[in-house]
């Protein structure tokens, strides 16, 4: 006779066990990274699949966000006569927050799901078991290269997102609205700090890269070998990656930007 308390306890234990399982998985992948680096061709191929193929959506989104930020911030700033600071506001918003976070969310959706599906289907088709039986560690050959590729790709994508966002904001602010071009850049240059703002943004995006890629690989590896299993796993990848990014972003922002 199971009562609610027992069920709750069982549920909690299962969650704990899955955390532990995930932690071991993470350590295994880390241990396999040196060997993956020796087979650098594999990593390169994965950077292509994860990074290059995400370029279009990242650049398009970056530009769109830049446009919209410029428009919205303009209306807020112009009431205080501070329209000249538009460049600064857009830059800080992108480089500190929107660049890493939005890129992370898009990355989870585009690259994360494709990783999960790929690993899940490889597992379903017994490809990973076949590799094991051939005495080749699938973690070193399949998982670790993808992990490294994700960590390398995310910061690059976030940088490009911010850069094209600033350019997009320039187009809207200077060419369309009429903010002074010189002020747009000079106020931005005088107040944005390379190490504190751009640097911290890159650190954030690297952390998000680790989170997204790891969640995607883990979900793919643990999925049931059925169509529903893979579909469920891809959903979980997006949800867990997104929630983790937002939560970690809050913590990182508090750590990095709390003292002005």
């Amino acid at each position, binding site marked *: 006779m199971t009562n609610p308390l027992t069920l709750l306890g069982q549920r909690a234990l299962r969650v704990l066990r899955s955390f532990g399982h995930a932690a071991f998985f993470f350590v295994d992948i880390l241990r396999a990274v040196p060997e993956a680096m020796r087979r650098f061709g594999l990593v390169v191929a994965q950077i292509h699949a994860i*990074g290059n193929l995400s370029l279009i959506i990242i650049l398009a989104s970056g530009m769109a966000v830049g446009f919209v930020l410029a428009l919205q911030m303009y209306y807020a700033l112009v009431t205080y006569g501070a329209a000249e600071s538009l460049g600064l506001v857009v830059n800080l918003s992108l480089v500190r927050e929107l660049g890493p976070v939005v890129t992370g969310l898009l990355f989870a959706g585009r690259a994360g799901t494709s990783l999960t599906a790929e690993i899940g289907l490889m597992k379903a088709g017994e490809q990973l078991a076949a590799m094991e039986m051939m005495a080749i560690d699938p973690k070193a050959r399949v998982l670790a290269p993808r992990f490294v590729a994700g960590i390398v790709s995310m910061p690059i994508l976030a940088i490009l997102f*911010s850069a094209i966002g600033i350019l997009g904001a320039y187009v809207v602010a200077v060419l369309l609205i009429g903010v002074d071009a010189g002020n747009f850049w000079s106020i931005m240059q005088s107040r*944005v700090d390379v190490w504190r703002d751009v640097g911290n943004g890159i650190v954030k995006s690297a952390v998000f890269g680790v989170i997204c890629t790891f969640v995607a690989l883990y979900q793919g590896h643990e999925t049931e070998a059925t169509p529903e299993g893979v579909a469920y796993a891809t959903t979980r990848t997006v949800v867990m990656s997104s929630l983790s990014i937002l939560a970690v972003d809050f913590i990182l922002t508090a750590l990095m930007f709390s003292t002005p």
Partner: protein
Amino acid sequence: MGKKGIETLVGLFVLLGMLGLAFLALKAANLGSFGGGEGYTLTARFDNIGSLKVRAPVRSAGVTVGRVTAISLDNKSYQGVVRIEVDRNVQFPKDSSARILTAGLLGDQYVGLEPGADEKNLGAGDTIKQTQSAVVLESLISQFLFSKAADSGSGNAPATPPAAPPAGAKK
């Protein structure tokens, strides 16, 4: 897509990333605006540094010539010790003064250097002797009220609201 093709594309991707980083760092932030060459360190002590922060600019005649690198409290004299790094190409006489000024009405605070008249210049590691602390709003108000109270104490009616003297405007 051959192996060489993929490698080229990935190389392009990484190159694009580096270009984006260069853009962000140079065009959109303050990396390039420090000017050429290394700097030399000077120290200045203030009774009150106000809201001066590390990495605040050091300006002379409005031109940025350096950055604040460290702020600490001297535990014996209870003065704020501010270390600044000044561009090597700019020299200041030994009796130059340092003040903490505010950029614009509500802006951030920065260190303003006013050159003195000494023949010899400040070298690396020297201390700026003449300093003027930041203006603290509360002290200003209490100073104003105190002086008003002193005026009324010498006979004038305190009922009239203290208005800004029009004499200043007439000048």
